[in-house]
């Protein structure tokens, strides 16, 4: 509505301007014509005297000449000698050199009074010449312009109001469709999706965006559901064993040594459950992004070296060599404890599920530090590589090995928290896990971390 009003106003303004401009143009035209006529007639008079002038006026008033010209020649007593006025006009208004006076002209079916503009020119011997033009044509033109514009505004208003009504009704209908859709989803119809047209306008994009959001929520929900299922499953076994052992102890008729063993085993089971919870919480922390409030420069080379050294003793026990290919001075930005956890988990996995030799390599690339840990074990089939990063996913071949099934998930979550990527690949043979981290920040204020 507002737009319609504004639009009409501007059309009116344009109309006014055109009216004004045409008016000025017509007036100027009229002045020029009258001046030219006057000069022409005065020229006739100078050349041929009064009879010449009379002749010239009569020529100009010949019936085949149409126009708005007004001519009048009067003698000293005011009697008209030639021209198309019955007498010298009575009510004359003087405007500069111009005389403004009413003239009567035959209209289509009756006499009409028009305003005329003229110039008086005195001739020798008391004769006076009046040359002018009436505004009949000009008025008609201006009237026509006014009519056209008023009609235009009216049509435009109607169009604007009608169109606006239709348009906003369409708009409201589409918003309402989305509203209803959201309502349906909220009421539990989580599979419902917004209608998306083919116009690819704002509404279609809004609908598509909402649908993408709903898809993502659905994906997250099913991920959470599967995690919950997995938690339930993976915790039920140790909790059941824990319960069984405690029952054994409670039965009571056992020698002290056996009781002690049963209790220690129970504590072991409880520790296993707690370890699983800890890992889950760590993953959740890393994924929430909250754990990196403090960021430091981390000497990745040192971390890789320390991790290799920490696991080397165990690897040797297993008869597996850890080959180091660690470049000095490779740095990253983040938390050294978390990054160490990630590296340790990968080494732990390589020793648990892989076979020797295990190779840990670290070097800086233009895209940031790259750390890889490769083993020569059975590897992970290509189709399973994305899956094994998820929580609790353990391939059947490794089910019998001790572990929470969270080590790789935690490593991946930590790497993501640091803005990096963890990728599993074929080591031909074996598994190659690569971590790429962002280039270390140039200037990081060293936060005061006290270490125990």
């Amino acid at each position: 509505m507002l737009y319609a009003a504004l639009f009409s106003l501007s059309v009116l303004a344009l109309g006014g301007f055109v009216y004004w401009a045409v008016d000025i143009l017509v007036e100027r035209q009229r002045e020029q014509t009258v001046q030219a006529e006057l000069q022409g007639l005065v020229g006739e008079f100078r050349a041929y005297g009064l009879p010449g002038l009379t002749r010239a006026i009569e020529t100009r008033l010949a019936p085949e000449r149409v126009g708005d010209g007004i001519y009048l020649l009067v003698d000293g007593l005011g009697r008209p000698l030639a021209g198309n006025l019955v007498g010298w006009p009575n009510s004359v208004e003087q405007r500069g050199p111009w005389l403004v006076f009413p003239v009567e002209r035959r209209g289509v079916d009756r006499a009409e009074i028009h305003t005329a503009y003229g110039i008086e020119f005195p001739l020798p011997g008391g004769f006076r010449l009046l040359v002018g033009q009436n505004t009949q044509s000009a008025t008609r033109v201006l009237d026509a312009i006014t009519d056209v514009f008023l009609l235009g505004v009216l049509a435009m208003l109607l169009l604007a109001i009608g169109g606006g009504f239709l348009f906003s009704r369409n708009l409201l209908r589409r918003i309402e469709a989305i509203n209803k859709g959201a309502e349906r989803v909220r009421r539990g119809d989580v599979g419902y999706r917004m209608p998306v047209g083919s116009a690819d306008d704002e509404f279609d994009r809004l609908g598509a965006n909402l649908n993408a959001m709903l898809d993502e929520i659905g994906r997250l929900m099913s991920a959470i559901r599967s995690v919950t299922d997995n938690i339930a499953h993976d915790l039920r076994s140790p909790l059941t064993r824990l319960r069984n052992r405690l029952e054994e102890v409670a039965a009571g008729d056992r020698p002290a040594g056996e009781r002690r063993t049963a209790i220690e085993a129970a504590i072991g089971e409880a520790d296993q459950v707690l370890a699983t919870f800890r890992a889950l919480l760590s993953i959740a922390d890393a994924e929430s992004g909250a754990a990196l409030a403090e960021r430091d420069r981390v000497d990745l080379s040192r971390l890789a070296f320390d991790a290799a050294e920490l696991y080397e003793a165990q690897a040797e026990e297993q008869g597996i060599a850890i080959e180091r290919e660690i470049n000095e001075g490779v740095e990253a930005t983040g938390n050294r404890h978390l990054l160490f956890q990630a590296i340790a988990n990968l080494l732990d996995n390589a020793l648990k599920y892989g076979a020797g030799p295990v190779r840990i390599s670290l070097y800086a690339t233009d895209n940031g530090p790259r750390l890889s840990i490769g083993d020569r074990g059975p590897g992970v089939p290509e189709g399973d590589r994305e899956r094994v990063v998820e929580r609790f996913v353990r391939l059947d071949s490794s089910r019998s090995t001790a572990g929470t099934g969270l080590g790789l998930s935690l490593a991946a979550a930590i790497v993501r928290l640091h803005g990096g990527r963890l990728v599993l690949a074929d080591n031909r043979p074996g598994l190659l896990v690569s971590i790429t981290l962002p280039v270390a920040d140039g200037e990081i204020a060293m936060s005061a971390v006290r270490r125990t």
Partner: protein
Amino acid sequence: MRILLIEDDRATADFMAKALAEHGHMADRAEDGRDGLYHASGGGYDVIVTDRMLPALDGLSLVQALRAAHVETPILILSALGKVDDRVQGLNAGADDYLVKPFAASELIARIEALGRRQSRDATETSLAVGDLAMDLLARTVTRSGKRIDLQPREFRLLECLMRHAGQVVTRTMLLENVWDYHFDPQTNVIEVHISRLRQKIDRDFSGPLLHTVRGAGYVLRADA
């Protein structure tokens, strides 16, 4: 040792007090932060153990208040808040150690005893000795019964940590934090292999083992087996 326990959960406080008593320590208890601060300011404690989320005054503020008042008693924060940043916050507030709930009694006792010992330790020690095992901190050499034992740098630090806490249980996480300087959760007991290697070097060729494993808790270096 006299220990102040600031903990609003009675079951946890009972559990801790009992465990401490079994190890020959005396525990006073406070159930909220203000009461805890009052007791702690009075002094006379060897170690203060405080929860983080407490009624009246939270644990972090309590630690800050004590440190501002120049009470230098070692403080161990015990909390369910176990993120890396939570830990850093606790240590930055002025605590000396940070233990996450749930915890094993052995871990708590080991850490409390380590803190109490830290207080009394002479910082300018140049040598350590446990039985016939001697460590020269300046020359960085180790001998047992006068016989030189060659250790890797990491093994040296491991032994140093154990010798500094001689007679006390040192847990695996304490070793990871003190010797390797990483606070993380090893999936497998990686420390065990390092200990057994160290054990081979310092115990195998000598009479009377010094390095003992305390089941379910950690390790202890002790002269009288």
